[in-house]
């Protein structure tokens, strides 16, 4: 028997059960949606919060890290919306279309909706779409990539609001679309946001998902459908206190280009997970990320890439800079199906440790069933190269500045890969700000 008998629920698990019981009648969607929620919650109840003996969550033991489950956030009132307006994000200087969610609820008044609407782009709220069983949402929600991940199950059970975006075939919005999830206060509260983004054939979009939070628990999931020959650059950022679980479920069509970038700076507890499925041939994907961590920050980037079609190329490059007692986790699993011949998949993870007590965990996994593939992985972790530091200092650059320059270079090599200039610059500025606080 390898079924674990769970007789004792943790305090957080009990609280989640109460939350679901109390909220399910009021959560948006009836019929099929309600059933989806019930099924998902049963899956959660059967397994409970993941812990260190669950391989995928080995280094981010939620059962220990999530001692309590906060109550669902109340919908923001006028005062909350006013407070939320003062949140200044990393991308203030970037021309983008903002879709703002406060405490998990869409705030149309803070978003850019009517003015300058893009031809061929439709934007709506998930709560509204679920309530009226919108066909686009019903066709995709919970179906983009199959996973039995418990955090996703919890999200499905409790999803309140989120964005529903459809970018029509061949459409290229002229500016990035920015999903902003922010907490309006520092009360302990939880939100479960779920978004669906469908980028149709040949369309091209840059999408940002950013989380600005105080002491909340946020469980966010985004289902992204990248159509054939489409291009999507997806950037997500995490900052602030609290627990944040952000899941990206992406299905990528034939001949598509798909880039993701996960940026975390001064983020207390983050689990970024991506489940990506290459469903069509000749796709190129670049999955990258940078984590800048200090104090007791913990950021976990976990990826599961499934090459289900032939002739696809994927590149994963994740870097972390860790100071004090921070922890970074990288888990990258590449699965190459038997018929996915000529797959070219490489992953590289590097950690720069600035203190004796910082810890970097790296776990690359390759599961290959095809016989004609090029797959590889590499991982390094270490301190700043003393030889490099001496070279810079011997040219007159003071120690602090020499270190900053080298760290900046370490980060820059990955950030440089972001295609959108404004976003790239904003993340370089954010990196410099993080460095400046050393």
């Amino acid at each position, binding site marked *: 028997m390898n079924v674990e008998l769970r007789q004792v629920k943790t305090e957080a698990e009990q609280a989640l059960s109460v939350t679901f019981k109390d909220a399910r009648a009021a959560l948006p969607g009836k019929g099929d949606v309600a059933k989806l929620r019930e099924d998902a919650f049963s899956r959660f109840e059967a397994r409970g919060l993941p812990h260190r003996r669950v391989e995928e969550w080995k280094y981010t033991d939620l059962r220990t890290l999530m001692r309590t489950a906060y109550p669902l956030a109340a919908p923001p009132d006028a005062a909350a919306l006013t407070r939320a307006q003062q949140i200044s994000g990393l991308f203030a200087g970037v021309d983008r279309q903002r879709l703002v969610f406060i405490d998990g609820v869409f705030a149309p008044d803070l978003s850019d909706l009517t003015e300058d609407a893009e031809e061929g782009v439709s934007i709506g709220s998930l709560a509204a779409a679920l309530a009226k069983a919108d066909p686009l949402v019903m066709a995709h929600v919970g179906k983009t990539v199959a996973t039995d991940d418990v955090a996703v199950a919890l999200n499905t059970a409790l999803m309140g609001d989120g964005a529903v975006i459809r970018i029509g075939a061949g459409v290229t919005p002229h500016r990035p679309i920015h999903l902003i999830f922010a907490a309006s206060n520092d009360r302990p509260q939880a939100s479960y946001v779920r978004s669906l983004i469908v980028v149709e054939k040949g369309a091209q979009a840059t999408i940002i998902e950013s989380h600005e939070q105080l002491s909340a628990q946020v469980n966010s999931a985004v289902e992204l459908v990248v159509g054939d020959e489409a291009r999507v650059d997806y950037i997500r950022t995490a900052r602030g206190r609290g627990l944040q679980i952000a899941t990206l479920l992406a299905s990528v069509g034939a001949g598509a280009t798909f880039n993701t970038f996960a940026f975390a700076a001064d983020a207390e507890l983050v689990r970024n997970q991506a489940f990506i499925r290459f469903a069509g041939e000749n796709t190129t994907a670049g999955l990258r990320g940078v984590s800048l961590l200090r104090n007791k920050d913990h950021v976990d980037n976990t990826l599961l890439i499934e090459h289900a079609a032939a002739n696809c190329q994927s590149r994963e490059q994740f870097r972390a800079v860790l100071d004090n007692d921070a922890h970074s986790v990288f888990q990258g699993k590449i699965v190459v199906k038997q018929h996915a011949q000529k797959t070219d998949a490489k992953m590289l993870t590097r950690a720069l440790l600035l203190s004796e007590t910082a810890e970097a965990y790296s776990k690359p996994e390759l599961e290959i069933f095809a016989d004609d593939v090029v797959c590889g992985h590499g991982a390094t972790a270490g301190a700043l190269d003393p030889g490099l530091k*001496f*070279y*810079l*200092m*011997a040219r*007159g650059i003071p120690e602090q500045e020499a270190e900053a*320059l080298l760290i900046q270079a370490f980060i820059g090599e990955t950030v440089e890969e972001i295609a959108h200039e404004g976003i790239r610059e904003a993340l370089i500025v954010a990196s410099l700000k993080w460095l400046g606080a050393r």
Partner: protein
Amino acid sequence: MSMLEIKNLHVEVEGKKILNGLSLTIEKGQVAAIMGPNGSGKSTLAYVLAGKPAYEVTEGDVLLDGESILDMAPDERAAKGVFLAFQYPVEVPGVATMTFLRTALNAQRKTRGEGEFSTPEFMKLVRDTSAKLGISQEHLRRPVNVGFSGGEKKRNEIMQMAILQPRLAVLDETDSGLDIDALKIVSDGVNRLRSPDRAMVVITHYQRLLNYIVPDVVHVLAKGRVVKTGGKELALELEAKGYAEFVGEAA
């Protein structure tokens, strides 16, 4: 006052004694060659002057313009005018050569209480200097030394020297890995920097470099100390006879 005075210098690296009571004086305007067999301590001397960590001075002193530099960090020494042209220049991924040069130059100037270079002034300085050394604009945009050939790396060292205008330049085996054309370009670059206000320490294993950079004085190093000093003809003598005499004598 001599520009550089090395007094009875004893240096250990990881518990191993390398310099063993080395004394040496170099005057302003002088080009001094330091020659010696492998393992005699030539590179150690270069690193100690530049302040490389893990090179522990157990005895003696090094004075630059009468002031001890041993307690100074490498960047402070650089601001005082010490420059080491590395035998093996390191590759610095992610740092563009231009950024590196500008950061170094302005950091030194700031430490000395001088104003920063304006962008046009700096660009002109780099353009003029790199052109003389045959370094392309493309190289300047690339990360420092990344993907450069051995000769390109050495030329880059001399370019840095020309831009930073040190008072004391230490050239550690600048000739190693250079073909004859590159040797000539590098030597011309060094000779252009000869000045009555600047001293140079040219460390080399072979006499060949000294045909191009003609020294005022030649010191022979063996077993961690200076065993013979002479004029430029001493280098030719060593080329003919080898170092056997010194290796034996110091043992």
